[in-house]
Structure formats: C-alpha cells, structure tokens
C-alpha cells in the first residue's frame, strides 16, 4: 500500500463524472422550461471543472488546475448572465404569456 498511485482511482472518477454529465445533458435537452436548461449548463460546468482537476492530478500536470479555475469562473459568469437576461426579459421563457 506504500507506493499506491491514485491515477486509476482518478480515471475511474473522471469516467463516472462524465456519465453523470451526459445524464445532466439529457435534462438540458428535455428540460421543459428555460431555467432547467440553464441549470443543466451550470451543473455540467461544475462537473467539468472537477474532471479537469482530476485529469491534472492523474497526469501530474499542474497546468490543468489553472484551466479548471478559469473554467469555474466562466461557467459561474454564464449562469449569472443567463439569469440576468431571463430576469430582464431578453430571454423569454415559455411560461411567460
């Protein structure tokens, strides 16, 4: 157990998270209302950020952590801008008569 390298565990969790991301993609497609789709985008963004960090550590490259940081910031901004547009009426949801 001394020189156990976690790369296999990290790869397994990466694959598991990608399967979960595809399930969230289905909610993005089938989501009846517009906020469901924005939520699916936000959820996939969070999962992608964690996958990036896991890949970075599985392959011992530190650059992936910076990519994950920027990606986390961007996906947060996307959700905020989308909900702002939804609120000000530029993005019209189907339920608004």
């Amino acid at each position, binding site marked *: 157990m001394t020189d156990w390298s976690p790369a296999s565990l*990290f790869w397994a969790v990466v694959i*598991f998270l990608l399967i979960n991301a595809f399930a969230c993609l289905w909610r993005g497609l089938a989501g009846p209302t517009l906020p469901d789709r924005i939520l699916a985008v936000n*959820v996939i963004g969070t999962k992608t950020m964690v996958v990036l960090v896991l890949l970075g550590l599985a392959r011992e490259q530190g650059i992936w952590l910076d990519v994950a940081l920027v990606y986390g910031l961007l996906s*947060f901004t996307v959700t905020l801008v989308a*909900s702002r547009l939804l609120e000000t009426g530029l993005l019209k949801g189907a339920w608004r008569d």
Partner: protein
Amino acid sequence: MLAAVHALIVSFLVIAGAAFFFIGTLGLLRFPDFYTRVHAVTKCDALGAGLVLLGLAIWSGPDGEGVRIMALIALLLLSSPTAGHALARAAFRTGLQPWTREDGDESD
C-alpha cells in the same frame, strides 16, 4: 503506515464526493419541477465537488498544487450557491409557478 492512512483518506473523500455528484444527478433527473431540481443540484454539486477537491488537495499536499486546489474549493463554495440563487430568483420573478401536489403528475 502514514502513507496508507493518507491514501485511504484521499480515496474515501474522492469516492464520497462522487457519490454526492450521483445524488445530485438523480435529483436533477427525477424531480418534477425546476425549483426542486435547482435546490437538489446546487447543494449536492457544491458538496460533491468540495469533497472531491478536498481529497485532491490532501493528496497533493500543501505545496503549489494544494494551494491552487484550495483556491478552487473557495471559488466553488462561493459561486455555486450564488448561481443557483440568481437562477431561481430570475425564474420566480418572471412568474414560473412552483409545482404543487394538486398538479398531480401533469409534468413528466
């Protein structure tokens, strides 16, 4: 011996985080309406990602990578709830009515 405990803690945290991600995905898929989904997913994703990143931060130690992962955890714990709140407030303000028991199973 210390390395074994170290590896055990890391793998336990990472697997627990992955389990919370799975619960969040289940909540996203099975809940009947937007508000129930956003409450399930925002909590589970923030916690799941927090656990996974905590395990990775412990694994990569307090050097350069560990500090960056700690920054990621801080960013995540700040941004995920805020995004969920902004989205739910926007949806509510534009008139999306929450699902109630009387609606029965008209949504999928």
